[in-house]
């Protein structure tokens, strides 16, 4: 148990420390790196609890894909210019909206944790019998695709909608862009592509006609 405790405290302290560093570090790139460290340590905590499937999915989805794109965007920002507008320029307009969101999240957490505290089976899923013989990948699958199939599909559709929305918002049709059409290239024939011309001496030829 000792080793278990050591690892637990190591990963949880790392998670809390890196979460603090995400919001306090001055450089945006550094805070993304701390965010990644946070994801990894939370993933390790998941694995220690025995939820290895969730831990691995957290690593694959958040660290392997989402955080890479995050980093991608943050690295493109001009750090020096941003610092100026943030610290020296006018007052930031982000603070009120940020406050509202964080207060809302805090209230939500209060409701969830408080509900759990005062009523034993506030969540219906806690009535489920846990079979220790099957791996948690199987048990998640057998619940997700039977009882909760509707919610699963709905969350998928919401993700798809947000993706379509983002593409529509940023898509603009540009003029004079040359694209390669493979079908056109392959279906070119000798008769339409090559022609033989008699060229008069000292006159040249106009190719465009």
């Amino acid at each position, binding site marked *: 148990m*000792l*080793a278990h405790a050591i690892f637990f405290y190591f990963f949880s302290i790392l998670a809390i420390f890196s979460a603090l560093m995400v919001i306090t570090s001055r450089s945006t*790139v550094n805070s993304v*790196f701390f965010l*990644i460290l946070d994801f990894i340590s939370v993933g390790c905590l998941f694995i220690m609890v025995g939820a*290895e*499937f969730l831990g*691995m*999915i957290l*690593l*694959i989805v958040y*660290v*392997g*894909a989402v955080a*890479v*794109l995050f*980093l*991608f965007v943050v*690295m493109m920002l001009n750090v020096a210019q941003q610092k100026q507008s943030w610290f020296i320029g006018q007052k930031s307009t982000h603070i009120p909206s940020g406050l509202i969101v964080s207060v809302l999240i805090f209230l939500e957490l209060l409701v969830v944790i408080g509900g759990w505290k005062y009523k034993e089976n506030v969540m219906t899923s806690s009535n489920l019998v846990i079979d220790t013989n*099957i*791996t948690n*990948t*199987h048990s998640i699958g*057998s619940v997700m695709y039977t009882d909760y199939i509707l919610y699963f599909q709905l969350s998928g559709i919401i993700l798809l909608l947000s993706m379509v929305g983002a593409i529509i918002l940023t898509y603009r049709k540009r003029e004079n862009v040359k694209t*390669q059409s493979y079908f056109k290239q392959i279906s070119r024939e000798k008769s339409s592509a090559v022609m033989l011309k008699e060229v008069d001496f000292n006159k040249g030829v106009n190719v465009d006609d």
Partner: protein
Amino acid sequence: MDYFYTLLNEIYKILFLIVPILVSVAMIVWLDRRVWGLVQKRRGPNVVGPFGLFQTLADALKYIFKEIIIPASANKIIFILAPIITMTLALVAWAVIPLSETLVLSNINVGILYLFAVSSLGVYGIIMGGWASNSKYPFLGAIRSAAQMVSYEVSIGIIIINVLLCVGSLNLNDIVLAQKNLWYVIPLFPMFVVFFISALAETNRPPFDLPEAEAELVAGYQTEYSGMMYAMFWLGEYANILLMCAMGSILFLGGWLPPLDIYPLNIVPAPIWMIFKILFLFFLFAIIKAIVPRYRYDQLMRLGWKVFLPFSLIYVVLTASFLLYFDKLPKGSF
């Protein structure tokens, strides 16, 4: 005291895994250069040691004695961390690769997810190195590489789903044992081809080596690196290639199983089959490096998103409906 002995035992096992991998990485570099040379009618490295086998060791020695230069405007911590991360991630993934039914460091339930997770983390070494160098060519290389690796990971993930549908377990040993009668390369041959090409892109190998395209970007994300740090990138890259070959042989070529369960073949020890399959896949990697010209970047992206992704998605539907119709869905562990 008990903890101490377990710890020592684990360290001993880890050393016995890592040292052979490092040695085989060195040998594989030699093989790669040798094949490349033979295709182009050159001799390749043949001076140091018998058949030039010690060429890589000599190179490594040279790298160790070279000076490590850190650019003045670089972000020092991240600059030093980047090659360490590449190398560590490339080696850490080997913990779950089974060389035989029992010869595996850690036989975990979600082995294939672990492999996939670690290989998708590999992009960080490159992106960190490119950004921390604070220079134009490395940054362009890092951005190309990030975009490329993220897009090809998607198709690799869907190919893994294809195999998992047939197996019904995420454990690597179960995946190998499920191929006892028929290697998945036969029913899932199109997926094997797609996996192989995606693996080329995932490890930044030619014809998809745009992140380090020497004609455009000098050496991509490695431009500012020198000495041992460059060597670590280089070793990590080859360890990753070996890892992809191991993954391919586990998913499609039956891992440590002999091709047929008949007399002269099944007395050959299992690790030898595994190593032979990894070498076979690596030979294909090396040949392709020698004979195929580099892709253009937009063609690379088109191939990943518009060809491989829909194709492997359709194949998931095909595999699932086939298994459902013929009632072949795996039911083992329920």
